[in-house]
Every structure is written in structure tokens, then in C-alpha cells.
């Protein structure tokens, strides 16, 4: 039987939590990817969503609040052979971690970021997260939210993510498909994953979303993929996606909003200079010879610091 990527821990999310669907979709996609568990590295920040790696039977790193992106990037940089997926809460990625979220767009490390978008800070008991609209008063709040909401899709597009999609956690099958596409993309892919939090967010509920979501690819004319490595081509798709990202009301689009496979990933950029970066990545470079001595030699590397007689 295929590896089902489940651990035997009790999943301690509230009944009805949207995170269950994300977990299932992730596990299914990993199974379908047909890799060894050791080929994966699953990351998370801190929050309800951040417990995800513990529930997945593959190498996992539950990191610090807001820091999931740099932690995930570090492993990928050191070992580009691994398939890296980073799960973050919306507070985690878009509030305390927003700086890294922005920086990731500039790097385009080949990995997938999943935003568990529930509109609240789950694990600290329901404060507004950056995706909650101003004026809304969810259960945990003393009064209506005073901050404007961020549009994660528009933000991701604007800071340079090369693959931007949206999914809905209660549609496990389609979510799984979107995850597979995102992981396949070479570069940083991000999924705005709508994840109802029945405990604290009584506005953006499962039902609320179910009445609104639709899949973009139902419309055959929808084409989010950049076909040419020109700024015109990417800008046109960017503007199309930005426009789509504003659709948030009676209708909420799901699916791939933007995809540009023509931007070199960070690894590719490193390999431009360090040409064998992929063959001998940092994690696989020998540093010690058979005598226990270092393999690197000052005389070969730092010649410009030598004062010749």
C-alpha cells in the first residue's frame, strides 16, 4: 500500500476545523507524488495550523511564529533535492511574518507556501488576523476589527510569486490537485487556502464559503499561465490576476490565478554562478577527507590574500 503519510497522533484541532481538510489534501497529494517520505520537508510556523507537520509522517519542522518561510528556505538551499512545503497561519505569514512573505517573492526558492487563511489567530483565542475585513466582529473580538484586511493573492502577485492559487479546505479533492500543481511549479508557489475556523470565525464559515466559491478553470477561456519570458507577457497575466483577486464578495474564485514558469528559481540563479550547485549541493558536499582532514585548501581559494615574496 502506498504510504498514507499519517502519524498516530491525535489531531487536536477543534471539530469542524478547516485544517482537517488541508491536512487530508496534503497527505493525499504526497501519496500521489510517489516519492519517499524522506524526499519531503514539511514546515510550519506557530498557531493551530502549525501543528500540521506532526500529523504528517514525513520529515517536519514546526518552527517559530512568523518564520516558516526562512526556515523552509534554509533547508531547500542546503539540499535542493528535497520537496519543501511550508504551512503557515494567516497571522503567521501575513502579520509577524509579512516581511519574509515579501522577501520570498524576490527569491523564488522552489517551494510551496500554504496560507491557512481563517481570518483569525486561532491558537491565541480568536484575535483578528490580517485577512479579516475591517468592521467585522468575530466571536473572539471585543469590538469590530479596526484594521483593514490584506488580500494575500494580490500581495503575493505584487511581490513576485511565480505561482499563485486559491483553494478551499473543505474541497479536499480540488485542494489536493492545486497542491500538486503548486509543488510541481519550479519556484515559489503560494496557495491562499480558505480555512474556516468554526470556533472563532463565525463570519467566514464553511457555509459562507460554499455559497461563494467557484473554480476559475471551469471557464475554458481562463488562462493564468505566462507563455513568454517578456515583461509584457508577465504583466498582462499579472494584471489579469490582480483584477481577479479583487473578486471577493458574492463570488470567490478558486484555482490557479497566476503561473510563470519562466522565472529562474533561486536555485537556478545560484547555479548560474556555482555551476554544479544541483549536482553537489551543500548538504551533499564532502568536507572531510579520508584522514579526517579538511578538503578545502587555503592556497587554492584565497590566493588574492597571499603576498608573494
Amino acid at each position, binding site marked *: 500500500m502506498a504510504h498514507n503519510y499519517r502519524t498516530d497522533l491525535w489531531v487536536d484541532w477543534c471539530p469542524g476545523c478547516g485544517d482537517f481538510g488541508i491536512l487530508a489534501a496534503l497527505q493525499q497529494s504526497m501519496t500521489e507524488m510517489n516519492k519517499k517520505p524522506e524526499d519531503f520537508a514539511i514546515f510550519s510556523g506557530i498557531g493551530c495550523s502549525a501543528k500540521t507537520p*506532526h500529523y504528517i509522517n514525513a520529515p517536519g519542522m514546526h518552527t517559530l511564529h512568523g*518564520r516558516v518561510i*526562512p526556515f523552509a528556505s534554509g533547508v531547500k538551499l542546503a539540499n535542493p533535492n*528535497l520537496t519543501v512545503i511550508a504551512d503557515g497561519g494567516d497571522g503567521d505569514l501575513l502579520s509577524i511574518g509579512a516581511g519574509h512573505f515579501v522577501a520570498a517573492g524576490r527569491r523564488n526558492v522552489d517551494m510551496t507556501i500554504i496560507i491557512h487563511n481563517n481570518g483569525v489567530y486561532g491558537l491565541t483565542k480568536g484575535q483578528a488576523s490580517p485577512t479579516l475585513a475591517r468592521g467585522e466582529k468575530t466571536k473572539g473580538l471585543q469590538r469590530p476589527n479596526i484594521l483593514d484586511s490584506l488580500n494575500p493573492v494580490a500581495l503575493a502577485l505584487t511581490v513576485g510569486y511565480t505561482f499563485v492559487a486559491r483553494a478551499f479546505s473543505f474541497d479536499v479533492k480540488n485542494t489536493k490537485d492545486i497542491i500538486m500543481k503548486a509543488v510541481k511549479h519550479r519556484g515559489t508557489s503560494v496557495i491562499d487556502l480558505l480555512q474556516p475556523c468554526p470556533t472563532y470565525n463565525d463570519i467566514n464559515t464553511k457555509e459562507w464559503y460554499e455559497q461563494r466559491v467557484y473554480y476559475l478553470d471551469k471557464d475554458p477561456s481562463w488562462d493564468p499561465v505566462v507563455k513568454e519570458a517578456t515583461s509584457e507577457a508577465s504583466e498582462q497575466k499579472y494584471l489579469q490576476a490582480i483584477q481577479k483577486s479583487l473578486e471577493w464578495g458574492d463570488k470567490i474564485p478558486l484555482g490557479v490565478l497566476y503561473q510563470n514558469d519562466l522565472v529562474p528559481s533561486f536555485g537556478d540563479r545560484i547555479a548560474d554562478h556555482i555551476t554544479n550547485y544541483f549536482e553537489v549541493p551543500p548538504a551533499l558536499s564532502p568536507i572531510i577527507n579520508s584522514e*579526517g582532514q579538511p578538503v578545502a585548501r587555503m592556497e587554492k581559494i584565497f590566493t588574492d590574500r*597571499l*603576498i*608573494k*615574496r
Partner: protein
Amino acid sequence: MPLVDIDLIIGGPQGGGIDSAAQIVIRAFSIAGYEAFGIREYYSNIKGRHSYFHVRVKETPVRSLRYPVDLLVCLDAESPFVHMEDVSDKTIVLYDEDLMNTKIEQVLTMESETKKHVLDKLKEGGFGTTIAGTIDFMKKRGAIPYPVSFRNLVVGALGPNKPPARYANTLGASLAMALMGLPAEFTSRGIESVFGKKKEVLEDNEKIVKSGYEFVKSHNNLNIKELPVREAKERYILTGNEAIGIGKVIGGLKLQTYYPITPAADESFFLEGHDYFEPVMGEDIDKENEVLKNASVVVVQAEDEIAAIAMAISGAMTGTRTATGTSGPGFSLMAEALGYAGINEVPVVVTLYQRGGPSTGLPTRNSQADLMFAINAGHGEFARIVYSSGDVPEAIDDAVRVFNYAEKFQVPVIHILDKNFANSFFLVDPLDYSKIKIERWKLSENTENFERFKLTEDGISPMGMFGKNIIWLTGDEHSELGHITEDPETRDAMMVKRMGKLNTILKEIPEDEQVELIGDKNADVTLLSWGSNTGVILSVFEKLRTEGVKANLVYVKLMNPFPSKLVSKYLSTAKVLIDLENNYTAQLATLVKQNCGIEVKNFILKYNGRHTTDDEVYEGIKRVLDKKENRVVMIRGA
């Protein structure tokens, strides 16, 4: 007494090539078979403010500086004002005679506080407040003015179309070298060694050298003797930053992350310039995989220091030797992630270059005031190593060592250094690789339920890696598998496991890597110190010995876990014990009290950000010994 022992300062505007001038001097002397050492002082500014290089040249190894200097080369109008107290009997003061009448108020680059202090001193002595006044001030101290028209010399050498300011540095260096008696040939070779063989540059500079030397020849009222040429060896000229970079690469660094900050970032820039290389490997590996020859270092500029350490930590969990380098402000931002590395027992190296604090403080100046912070940074309790190095030759070894420690004990290591170290220039011999060992974790079988945090006797668990084992890490308290647990018994066991490693570390690191007792066992006076002051202290010891005072130094390298027994042993026989550090609160002495229960009662401290020099250490020791002062604050340096 050595024949040659020359201290010189070359001062000029930031961006005016002071660096190159100093490099020329050091390289030229090295080629001529001499030893040299230098430190760079500069403002947090890109262009215009005063910077200077303090260099010493000897026939024997040198790793300290002293005031007053023998030669003061003033490439700008500020130099005579701020260095007027750095001279004494027989100091040659080279300056631009065209600036003679410049008033102190006209020196815009000078900070008003400094101006005020200089003015007070000039007025007090009844001197004028122009450069001429400072020259008088210096003359009164016995200095020998050596006026030069930079403009005339450059124009004379290169014609009117080359901007004199651009050549001030090579001209200054040439004049200086001529005044020191170094044959012109070496100056030329020094210049070539610095600027490379670009034809136009070389030709221009050759003319400058010539005109400098000719000027000195024709104005030789100083009775300059030509220095003998000595047998030269191949040497590397390295700053502290570079030594650490080299040590890391030799130690197997494969991923360095950083966010720019003075004085740490020079290490990363240096690595970026040397990131692609061919290692030399044992025959067998060579054959196995030809491509491995080209292994390199990936250097990543992160968006901030939090990202830098996060990447280094996770990268280390792939089995890669990773490090990040920073200074105070960046290190402060790393406190949280450091705790993550602690609870997850991650072998990551953080190179911490101390600079003047608190806060932004004196960003380009020296300090040793982050020690207590390095030891206590991050909430909660976890095992970490804090390890200190003081000079370049030592630093190369230590940079390898700290990786070994990190991996053997699976703890984060903070390699603590300071700005003086970072910006010192040393001449070092080629390495002896047979003395360098790389030690890693004990490898373990990949079992079904791999227990990354297995409870063991010595606290050290099998190292699990991404790409190899199914492991989990979490900043939460965790089970042996690495899953979150709040079970109280497991918690207690994990605390004991992690904290217990501190004992393992003290047991396994060789004593001489922890603390060194340098000097007479049976000394009249014992210094306690760390970091970049060692060279100065040992140099002063030589002088004290000539006066019949026997001294020794307890030089602490392992700061955490603190080698209490060893330090206690070394200190217990001290007759007069003096702590010498570059901070206000005497942090090493605090550590000694906290760990050994030994109260140090005498202190020689410096916290004005400038490098410590022989003369003030000597004076400090004398004041403690003879005048029974117990807190001497060193205040030298412009």
C-alpha cells in the same frame, strides 16, 4: 632591542583610500621581510569623516600597537587636530603644507564635541586654532613637522590633469615609507600587490612613488637610514573577518547566511568573493566523483537577521555546516531563534562581532560588551557554547573548532569576536593541515522510529537529518521522536538531557582549548582577559619583564559553559589580579564571580570604542600596582 619598531598612523577622509595606503605599507614591509600589524578606525559614514590606520612594523612578530606613534601621516585637515596628542619626542608629522592656515572651524567633518575638546587643549596651551597651531602643539611635545605640498608633488609627478586627492593615499604611503627608510623598490612592490598589475594604475603610482622618495631624499634633514632587507616568506595578509571566513571554509562551511552589518558583513562579502573553489580531496573521493571537486559555499544575503539565522538553523538540519555572522543589533534579533536551535539541539554557528553598544551605539567601533548577552540571549534555559577568539592565527583554528563543537555536542555555538579583531591586519603563515581535524556527530542507523531526541547518558542523541531520516523538530517541549508533549515527566527528562550536555562539553573539550595560562606560573601580577586584547597584554608583559615584573595572563576562550574549575585554579594563586576588558561592567570578571566565586578587585577597562594600546595597558597595570587604583579607564584613541 629590535632594530626596527615603528608605529605609524595614516589619517585621512573616509573614502580617501586610507585602507589601501595601510595595505601598501604592510605588504611592502612584508615583502621586505618584516612583520607588521595594523588596525583601522573609522566613522559610521561613507565619505568625508576622518578615518585612520594605525600600523606597527617590527622584525619580530607583532600584534599590538602603541602610542605615541613614530610617524603621523596627515592626509586631510582633520588629522593634525585629532591626532595632535598621539605624538611625542621625535615623531615625524607629515602634513599638507597647503592646509597650514586651515582653522578648526573650517574642518566641517569634525564633530562639534571633538572640536570643543581639541579647542580647549589648544587654547589651554596657548596655541593657535589652525593646523599651524596643532603643529606648534606637536612641536612642543618634541615632534618633527614634515610639511609637504601634496598638490605640488602630484602635479609634478602626473601633470595637472589628475586630481591630487585621488593620489593622496599612495603619495602619503610613499612618503611614509621613504621616511621610514624602506627602499623604494618595496614600496612599488607593495603598491603592485595591492592594486594588481593594471598598467595605467601602475604607471601613475610608480611616478608617485618616485616623486615621494625624491622629495624625501631632497628634504632629508632627518638623517634617515635605509632599512636592511630581510629574508621574506610567503605570507597571507588577513583581517580578522577574513581569517574567520577562511577558517569556516576550511572547516567545511557550505551555507553562510547574513544580513549586512558592520563589522560582521566584511566576512560574508569576502566569502562571496571566494565562494567557488576546488577543494583538495583524498584520492578515493576524487576518483569516485569527479564533480565533487567543485564544491562551493553558498552565501545568501537574507532579508534580515531573523531570516539569516532561521535559514542557517534549518540548513544545519540537512547535515550541512552552516553559519551566520552578525553584530549586536542583528544578534539581538536572533535571540528567539537561538532558543529554537537550543531546544532542537541544532549544530549551528553564529559568528558575533561585537561593536560599540548599546543599540546602534558606535557601529564602527570596538567593544566587548555583548558577552553576558551572548550567554543569556533567548528566553528559557538551554545549552549553548560561547567561544571567544582574539587574533587571526588563532581564529582560523577556532573557526574550525566551533563547527566541531557544534556538531559533536549538537548545540548552537556563538563564536564571539570583536571589532578590533575584525579590522586588524595580520601577516600569517600558510596553514599546516595536519593539525586541523574535522570532527562531526556520531553517525547512527536510520531506524523505523528514529528518535532524534533519544534520552542518553551524556545528553547527545543520534543526529537526524532532513533528506535522510524521518524526524520532527519543534520549538515546543517534545518527545524523543520530536513531537510536542506537555507530559511533565518527559519535560523534566528533556531538560536534564539538554542541560546535562553542559557537563559533557566541559569534560570533552581539551583544557587548553578552554582557558590558557600564558606567562610565568609564578607571577607578580595576573591579568584576566579575553578576545583581541591578548596581543597587547602579552606585548606589555615583555616590557614588564625587562623591568623585573613577572606577569601572566589567564586567557579565557570558552565562555559558556564556563570552565570554573580551571579558571579558579589559575586565578587562585594570583598575587595581584587585574581584569582587563573593553566594556564598562567588566563582564568576564562578572562571569568569574558568578561561576568561581572569585571576586576580581582590580580593573583596567576601555569602552570608548578605540583599540587598546600597549602604553595604556602598561600605564593601567602600573597604576594598579603602584598607585593602588582599582578601576582604571583607558581613554586613548581619536
